[in-house]
């Protein structure tokens, strides 16, 4: 404490204390106080971004024998970006990622909302179910991936259950069929991330003013009418947050999926992240990887900005 105090000069002490602080003087002190944090942010966010931007306009590769800072000698005039636009594997990976997102996020949302509605009321054993329900979220994704890899083997539990239900032996090769593999991967994602959706939506649901729900009941609204006219509109902000988080996260789907299928069979489950990973570790064309990553960052930023704007607008209206 004393060391810190000593570092602040007498002038600054006065500035903080009695004397009315002129505007620029206060700003200067503020700048100095936040400088360490700003430097940190610079190194963890701005620096890598600039580095990425720099590499993305070159043909640099770790095999090129140059330090990355010397990549300017491999300058290629935005060729990476024109390649990207014409790369069918990139576009199909992007399409696949979008399909996974369009199916997984709504399913997670609806399941999460249904569970949250259920948990908003009391029922016996609620606490136990609550803990059980949150467990998938705490499983390390790599472990979850391995778990689902085992479950979906042709001699695995999923087929065993189907056999028991249908009465005849089922031996579906889930992870070797292009369509079924994609379904299996989505099942794993839904299993792991519905709890997060549930948790966020439950928080929103609990925050809906109870007397407004009572007022609606007294005015003769049935439970479904109450849900549509009162609960959903009041949860708008939190729904936007939950969807934004999952859209962004789901777009980057990788670990569970990679362990289950490695992007296969063929490229049937190759999402953007898997494609980038393969280009990075197998093809080693880092300039191109940087270009792809930057393009995706821009797309996701647009989603984030859109969501934040909606949130800011919703927040102007107090609940």
């Amino acid at each position, binding site marked *: 404490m004393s060391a810190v105090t000593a570092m602040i000069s007498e002038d600054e002490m006065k500035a903080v204390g009695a004397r009315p602080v002129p505007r620029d003087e206060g700003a200067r002190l503020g700048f100095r106080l936040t400088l360490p944090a700003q430097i940190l942010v610079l190194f963890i966010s701005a620096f890598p971004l600039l580095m990425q931007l720099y590499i993305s306009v070159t043909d640099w590769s770790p095999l090129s024998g140059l330090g990355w800072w010397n990549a300017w000698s491999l300058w290629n005039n935005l060729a990476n970006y024109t390649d990207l636009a014409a790369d069918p594997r990139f576009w199909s990976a992007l399409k696949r990622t979008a399909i996974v997102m369009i199916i997984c996020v709504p399913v997670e949302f609806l399941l999460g909302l249904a569970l949250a509605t259920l948990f908003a009321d009391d029922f016996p054993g609620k606490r136990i179910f609550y803990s059980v329900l949150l467990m998938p979220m705490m499983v390390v994704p790599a472990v979850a991936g391995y778990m689902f890899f085992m479950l979906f083997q042709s001699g695995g539990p999923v087929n065993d259950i189907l056999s028991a239900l249908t009465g005849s032996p089922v031996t579906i090769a889930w992870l070797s069929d292009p369509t079924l593999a994609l379904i299996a991967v989505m099942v794993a994602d839904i299993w792991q991330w519905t709890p997060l959706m549930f948790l966020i939506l439950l928080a929103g649901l609990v925050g809906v003013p109870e007397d407004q729900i009572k007022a609606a009941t007294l*005015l003769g609204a*049935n439970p479904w009418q109450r849900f549509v006219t009162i609960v959903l509109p009041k949860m708008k902000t939190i729904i936007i947050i939950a969807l934004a988080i999952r859209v962004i996260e789901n777009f980057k789907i990788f670990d569970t999926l990679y362990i289950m299928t490695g992007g296969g069979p063929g490229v049937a489950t190759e999402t953007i992240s898997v494609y980038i990973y393969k280009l990075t570790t197998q093809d080693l064309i880092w300039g191109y990887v940087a270009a792809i990553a930057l393009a995706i960052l821009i797309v996701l930023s647009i989603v984030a900005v859109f969501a934040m704007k909606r949130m800011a607008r919703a927040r102007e209206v107090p609940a």
Partner: protein
Amino acid sequence: MSAIHLQNLVKKFGDFTALKTMDLEISDGEFMALLGPSGCGKSTTMNMIAGMEEPTGGKILFGERDMAGVPMGRRGVGFVFQNYAIFTHMTVRQNLAYGPKMRGAAKAEIDRRVGAIAEMLQLTPLLDRKADRLSVNILQRVAIGRSAIMEPAIFLLDEPLSNVDAAFRAVMRTELKQLQRQFRQTMVYVTHDQLEAMTMADRIAVMDHGVLQQVGTPLEVYNDPANVFVARFIGAPGMNLLKGRPAESDRGLVVDLGPLGITPPLPDALAAALRGARGEVLYGFRPEQATLVQNGQGLAMQVTFVERIGARTIVHLGLGEGAVKTVFDNDVGLAIGDTAIVAPAASSVRVFDAATGLAMKAG
């Protein structure tokens, strides 16, 4: 319109008894205030009338109809919440139209009813405003309109003025009373503020600790409190109560207050009621109904505090159990340390049994 009958109503929450037993008749078109300190069971009673809570025992009848098992949406009850519970994500129009819409009324019908109620409550120019930025008195009108549009037989109001600042409360009280005259519905009004109950209610039901203490018109409750609780609770400051024993004197029956001396003689009716009593009694009089008198004609007490409240002055006299408050005009000329000799107006004196707390009356 509908009368409300509460018969042996009991409510328990686990081990806690919120309402011990309640019998109350609220007649058709009456404005009844449920008045009491927090935790007295008034809100519980109201919630049971609305159907938000199930009684543990007893009956609630609307007219002839037993309400047991009738869900809150089907009781025909309008409810105005403490904070109005306006749907803030809707416009005023949507708020007003909510009830009819949920019951599937036709659009033209809804428009007609919303128009009529808005006209009545002077909300027409505000119909398309978002409900989240309205002032409290407008919120109150929207809340009332939203319930009134359903033409409920009964209106329940749960401390609707408690979030409003003091100056505005007077305006809202008048407005509310006028609205009640307009709608002519049976109204039950829960409050802990006696001024609200006094000014608006036809009758007041005073409650404490889950027990109904007294039901009567505002003046009955003020003038003839049924027991010590009501005497202390109603009035600001409440009734002065001094412990003593009845005693005969040459001027008639008096109360011997021990160290404070004896009171002026009791009026004949009270004296008759007290004559047989042997135990301790509480001698009560209203702070507003005491006057300064000559030595020997009243109670001599030392002034301990002088509280100026603007229009009048509250003078605190005596200490401990023998402390009383009196309200005088501002020019009373008493200062701390002075000795004041006060005598209550004979007609305002009330006597309570010290053991039971009940008022002692002739007959």
